[in-house]
């Protein structure tokens, strides 16, 4: 979804869900809107009734903190995409008290990221992702 266009409306999402779409994806990495953005805040709220996970790309320090603040207690999982070494601390701190937060693996690229995350938050919060076709598949799968 692009909150700039869809104004948080649910009809479009419901229609897509009926057609087999399984999650809502926000392309923050390409569309550059901030988290503190009214149409997006409305979308966060409206997704409560949809029972769909939300995937959102981590563009930098602090974004995850804001996303968690706006989605806490709303009942749907949030999967942070594009998390590399700079996102680890923020994710670990947030995930301890926010069980709805997950991390995807396409950019989990530090030597001991999986060991660290498993130890600190548990493997159930880690979801495999590759970023294909934009990324090489085995970059994520090889290790």
């Amino acid at each position: 979804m692009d909150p700039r266009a869809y104004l948080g409306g649910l009809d479009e999402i419901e229609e897509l869900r009926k057609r087999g779409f399984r999650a809502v994806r926000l392309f923050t990495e390409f569309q550059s809107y901030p988290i503190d953005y009214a149409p997006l805040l409305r979308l966060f709220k409206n997704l409560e009734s949809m029972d769909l996970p939300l995937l959102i790309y981590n563009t930098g320090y602090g974004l995850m903190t804001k996303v968690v603040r706006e989605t806490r207690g709303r009942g749907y999982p949030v999967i942070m995409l594009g998390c590399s070494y700079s996102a680890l601390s923020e994710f670990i701190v947030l995930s301890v008290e926010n069980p709805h937060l997950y991390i995807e693996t396409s950019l989990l690229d530090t030597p001991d990221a999986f060991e660290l995350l498993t130890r600190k938050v548990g493997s159930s919060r880690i979801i495999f992702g590759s970023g294909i076709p934009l990324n090489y598949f085995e970059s994520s799968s090889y290790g």
Partner: protein
Amino acid sequence: MSIPIIDAHAHYGKWFLPIYASDMRSIKDLMLRFNMKAAICSSSKAIVYNLIEGNRELFQSLDPSSGIYGYVTVNPNYLELSKDETKRYLELPEFRGVKFHTTYSGVPIDSKEFRELIEYAEPYDKPFLLHTYSQKDVRDVENLAKRFGGVKFIMGHMGGTETSWTGKNWKSAISASSEYSNIYLEICMTHLEAGKIEEAVERVGSQRILYGSDMTLLNPAHTIGMIMSSEISKEDKERIFYINAKGLFKI
């Protein structure tokens, strides 16, 4: 991993991040796991915090018998100190090149100060590993390659990438390397955009592409997977993983 590997872009030491696999034992474990025969490391401390201490700690930890060699890190903000460091370490067999990080130092690659350091280090005839993560960085390396025809420059991260996924940065690095035979491309970065390796091999040839992992910051698996995924020949993979670095660093 059946193909042997030489890692042309590795680090020793801690980062300001939650990474615990940063000591020499961790490096050796990673090397064993991924069939790495050698790794050329620069000191993360020398790059980020303290040039002298970082280079010294690296020197004290190097182990050529285990294939662990070093880059001496220089910082043009400290010209005379960097010359001293170059003189202290570069003639030692453990040190196989010079490392310069433009972002942490805040000094452009094509700067008067860094040119002075290149002139100083040139007689040692060892390659320079330069952090390149923008099109400006690439242009700067081109200028240096033109000016210093006898010096081998390795574009660390081969120009890098950007979140628009246009590939502009690494494409410009490929163009530079295709024009100047003393520019090598080293492949590691976080965003491993599909098609990068194939285009580099097609336009430059695999002989001047080097495998690098950026460990201990990054997991070698990340970039090994990229090469293994890429649609290039087995011979090209072997050159990238091992043969090119063996010749360049005289290992």
